């Protein structure tokens, strides 16, 4: 029985990392829960409503996308479409080349990671610098983010200080305050030199065409204050119908992500800067990116596209807490990633077919999700899909079930097995000659075998 890949990652994770990931996800989760339930009378009703609004968006994208496009254009934005990752990268490059631009600053956008934009631009001689502190550190180290809200949850301050020293950002000092100040000084020069500010969008209102961006650090604000051109990479699922719906979603997003009432900077952008404003972009380009989303929309798992990237599901997930984000081998870790990553992988689905199994189906992710995504259901559907597709990874870590299937489909054999099973009560299981079973037995005790008694109980139970 091959071990699951995610178990291998978990086993390799140093104990102090595991403890750090565990502690900080647990703290965030507890603060989130306390805040939501303290401040709102009906948090679960809010989640259901937010889920309903996003589901409505998904199921009406055919009309909402052209509607928001028209609104954006009327507001003065230029709208582009990119069906694939390659097309999205090419669109960014085209916009930059048309302006003779060579430097880009990036405020956190998951889509840019999905399409591997940094790598692509580097090959064309364009520097794309991350400005979110955590993402910046990940970029310095040629590492990968391990959490969608807390990219360096897997790193400690000593490693960060060492890497700052290596990259000429000052002598070793692991005080988080010093680390932050050094990044502040370094990055503000970069913003001022950059030609283009690249962002994502947390939401786009169809009603007004406003792009909504949230950050705590103010890096999106700086990316839109110094450079003269703004490019927004937006997944086609990011729409919300009305401005007022943002009241629900912003309240839920900030609390679910970081236990805040509101994220520090919430920006509503409709176009290039005002004529009277000396700073900021003269051009706004919005690139709507598909990159596999329409396939997800066509699948039984379309509800995963409601996701607002709050990270609450990874904070609460017992598997994520043990394995950390790199174990998911994709841009989106945790429960959301276990669904979304294999789906977005397209032809590479088999390579990630084990992810839907990285769950005990405990349901905690569904319970915390601000848009009420039934993640465990979706995981089951994907497990089924993986098995049917015969993906070897979908079977790793699972005992062969052929004999079981045979037994369970023959009533006579089944009855005999139930009775015969009693023998287990008399077997010295501790001495079984099968090593995996012995290992299993070490930390568990088999309950007494009571096969067949359910039917007897059912026949003789007294009906009220």
């Amino acid at each position, binding site marked *: 029985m091959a071990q699951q890949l995610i178990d291998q990652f978990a086993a390799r994770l140093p104990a102090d990392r595991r403890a750090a990931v565990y502690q900080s996800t647990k703290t965030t989760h507890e603060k989130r829960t306390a805040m939501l339930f303290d*401040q709102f*009378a009906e948090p679960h009703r809010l989640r259901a409503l937010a889920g309903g609004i996003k589901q409505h968006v998904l199921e009406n994208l055919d009309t909402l996308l052209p509607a928001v496009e028209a609104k954006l254009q009327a507001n003065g934005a230029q709208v582009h479409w990119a069906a694939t990752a390659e097309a999205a990268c090419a669109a960014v490059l085209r916009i930059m080349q048309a302006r003779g631009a060579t430097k880009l600053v990036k405020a956190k956008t998951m889509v840019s990671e999905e399409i591997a934009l940094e790598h692509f631009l580097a090959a064309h001689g364009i520097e794309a610098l991350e400005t979110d502190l955590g993402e910046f550190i990940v970029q310095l180290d040629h590492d990968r983010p391990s959490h969608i809200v807390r990219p360096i949850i897997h790193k400690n301050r000593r490693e960060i200080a060492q890497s700052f020293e290596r990259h000429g950002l000052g002598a070793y000092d692991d005080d988080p305050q010093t680390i932050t100040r050094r990044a502040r000084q370094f990055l503000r020069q970069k913003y001022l030199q950059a030609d283009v500010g690249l962002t994502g969008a947390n939401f786009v209102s169809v009603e007004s065409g406003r792009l909504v961006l949230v950050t705590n650090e103010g890096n999106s604000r700086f990316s839109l204050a110094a450079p003269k051109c703004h490019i927004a990479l937006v997944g086609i699922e990011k729409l919300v119908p009305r401005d007022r719906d943002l009241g629900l979603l912003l309240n839920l997003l900030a609390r679910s992500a970081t236990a805040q009432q509101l994220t520090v900077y919430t920006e509503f952008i*409709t176009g290039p800067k005002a004529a009277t404003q000396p700073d*900021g972009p003269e051009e706004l380009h919005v690139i*709507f990116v598909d990159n596999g989303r329409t396939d997800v929309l066509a699948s039984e798992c379309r509800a995963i596209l409601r996701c607002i990237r709050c990270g609450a599901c990874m904070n609460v997930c017992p598997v994520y807490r043990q394995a950390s984000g790199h174990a998911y081998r994709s841009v989106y870790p945790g429960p959301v990633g276990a669904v979304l990553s294999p789906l977005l992988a397209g032809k590479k689905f088999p390579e990630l077919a084990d992810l839907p199994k990285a769950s005990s189906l405990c349901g905690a992710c569904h319970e915390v999700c601000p848009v009420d995504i039934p993640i465990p259901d979706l995981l089951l559907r994907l497990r089924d899909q993986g098995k049917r597709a015969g993906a070897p990874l979908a079977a790793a870590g699972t005992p062969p079930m052929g004999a079981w299937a045979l037994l369970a489909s023959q009533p006579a054999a089944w009855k005999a097995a139930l009775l015969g099973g009693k023998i287990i009560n008399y077997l010295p299981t501790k001495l079984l000659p099968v090593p995996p079973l012995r290992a299993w037995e070490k930390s568990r005790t088999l309950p007494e075998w009571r096969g067949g008694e359910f039917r007897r109980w059912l026949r003789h139970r007294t009906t009220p």
Partner: protein
Amino acid sequence: MSSDRDTILAGVRAALAPLAARAPLPDWDRDLVRVRTLQPAADPWARFAARLTAVNGTPLTAVADLVALLEKNQWRRGYCDPALWPQFQGAFPAHFTVETAFDRTRVDDYDFGLTAAAGAIAETGTLILTDRGTSSRLAALAPWVHIAVLRREQIYADISAALAALPDDPNVIWVTGPSKTADVEGILIEGVHGPGVQVALLQ
């Protein structure tokens, strides 16, 4: 590019075609997101100030208090919105250097930036800035201290009220306290890219 547009929209239509019915848009009552633990204070400023303090912001009601704060921390070089300058000129002591144009080649020469707010949200301690109302995006962001000048009648009760009155402006920004991060070991640090001190000055 137009072919990508067609491909995506055709893909979306094909994906949705098998659906027997589309999910309706739920309506919802904005009272549902009203924070129940915050009792409505009689004075919107008092409520706003309490919430701003809760997110480590600094509410002030007198220019003298502002000057004292700046003086105490030796933040004596700054920027002031030219439209507000006539009003504040007399308040700053002679040893302060205050400019009314923000020079982006010297961002670190400014300890503070003073600009106008377009509003505030009492429930969250949020300041509302607009592009037309802010004299310089950079001056409101790059200096260590940002002072937003606010009038009492500009304060909205809650997020829903502020959303219903979103100004017609290309860049509306809600600022809720100083810029912050908890990226390094979950430890809260203020003043990452934006201000480490966020002041709301009531006029």
